[in-house]
């Protein structure tokens, strides 16, 4: 069984790494339900 399918996914992206929205697109493609997506900024 996969890690993501059917799970509630919380996304903490990074402005200087991978932003939240990009991760969101990936998670959805794996059959996960994205319940929260944000992007942090350290600069």
């Amino acid at each position, binding site marked *: 069984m996969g890690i993501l399918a059917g799970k509630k996914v919380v996304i903490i992206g990074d*402005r*200087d790494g991978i*932003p939240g*929205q*990009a991760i969101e697109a990936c998670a959805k493609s794996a059959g996960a339900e994205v319940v929260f997506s944000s992007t942090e900024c350290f*600069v």
Partner: protein
Amino acid sequence: MKSVIKGAGYILVHTPDMVLRNGTTQTTERIVNPDSEYLKELPSHLRSFEQALSYWPNQVYIGNKTPDELSAVEQPWHDKVCDVNARNGKFGQIMPQEEFLLLMQSCDVFDLVKLDKDFVAAHKAALAANPLMDETIMARINDGVDGAEIARLVSEEHSEGLYDHDKLVGCVNRAHDIDVNLSAHVMHENLVSKASSVLALLSAVKNAGIDKNEVEYVIDCAEEACGDMNQRGGGNFAKSAAEIAGLMSATGSDCRGFCAAPAHAMIEAAALVASGAYQTVVVTAGGCTAKLGMNGKDHVKKGLPILEDMIGGFAVVVTRNDGVNPEINLDLLGRHCVGTGSAPQAVISSLVTAPLDRAGLKITDIDKYSPEMQNPDITKPAGAGDVPLANYKMIAALAVKRGEIEKADLMKFPVEHGLTGWAPTQGHIPSGVPYIGFAREDLLAGKLNRVMIVGKGSLFLGRMTNLFDGVSFVIQKNSGEETAAGGVSEEQVKSLIAKAMKEFAATLLAQTD
């Protein structure tokens, strides 16, 4: 008419007490964890003014050292002493906290800043000796009040204390009893932004060698908002700072867009000049107290000094083509659109390769890229990595994908087309613009042909959109006087019309014959 970069000013202010009192990392910690080890340890990690002066990246920021010289210094830099420790540089200066508190009082036109009279007496002469200060600015400084009155204002009237070496030496009063937008905290933040913008404006105007009255328009691109409860971001920092800086012929407006704002403002300035709307426009920004000590917890944990103890400011003078100074090429603009998305490759493509493709240029046709120039000495220990280097790797990765460089040359790209970051993490301050001063010099000297300035902004922090943002523009070597380079002067137009009229008259005469 093209627009050119006539000069730039870069200033820093050393504000260790504001790190403790006004940086949000510290103010938050004081609320959630008032007895924390971090707050106890923090004061012993603050740098002296002399240490701030001999810090390599600071000397690069004011122009006494070059980015190339910095990149030759092995990282980390916080434990190295720069061989130049001057407070004045060719681009601007590093101001000590004492002078800056006086400058803040001078910039306050609503009698909100109160300074201890002994503090004023002790430091007024130092500010007066500052080469950028004139009589008008000095005349605005009053004698100050009793220390007891300041203590009363802070304890009873919600005033924001102004400290020097941990001693209360003044305060900023609230401008309204109820309106949070005019609270002492907000007024303090805004007056710091305004005063540092004034210092940047004065530096840039002096460096450009223009008369203050030539400036017709000022664009402020900082990240603060001024206004009251009925118009919270009403503005206008630009005109407020222009007033104190003595730019009597100028009006202006504020441009906002998080860290991308300076690049937006530069494009707007270039377009205003190129269109003929104004002849001389100055883009300016003061610094940000909230970000002081932003990554302090990591710095203290790792035994480093608090490196985010500097307020930053910059200003750039944009004028009509003089046939000499580097031009802003408005045909080579990159922009992150609503539909671009947030995938890093999409962001970089929209900002870098999209404009180059339109002009038939390759990534390697740009000599130097200036994306976000955050000092890695600050960001690496905080787990944010080397931001400029990450940007160069992204541009290089795109170049590999497009077959413009070999994958084996991926790591050569940041060296050949990149720069090592030196700007303080003041949000908008590092975003592309710190390089404009050096770029102007190298383009004038013929060392470079084209540089690209890239600004990126985290709009999602404002909770109004999830979108990212960014714009880019290219500065290039001057291609000469426009009349000589194919343009047509007014005299030429007149002579052409006269010639056409004569020919027409001759035709008419011939017909009547």
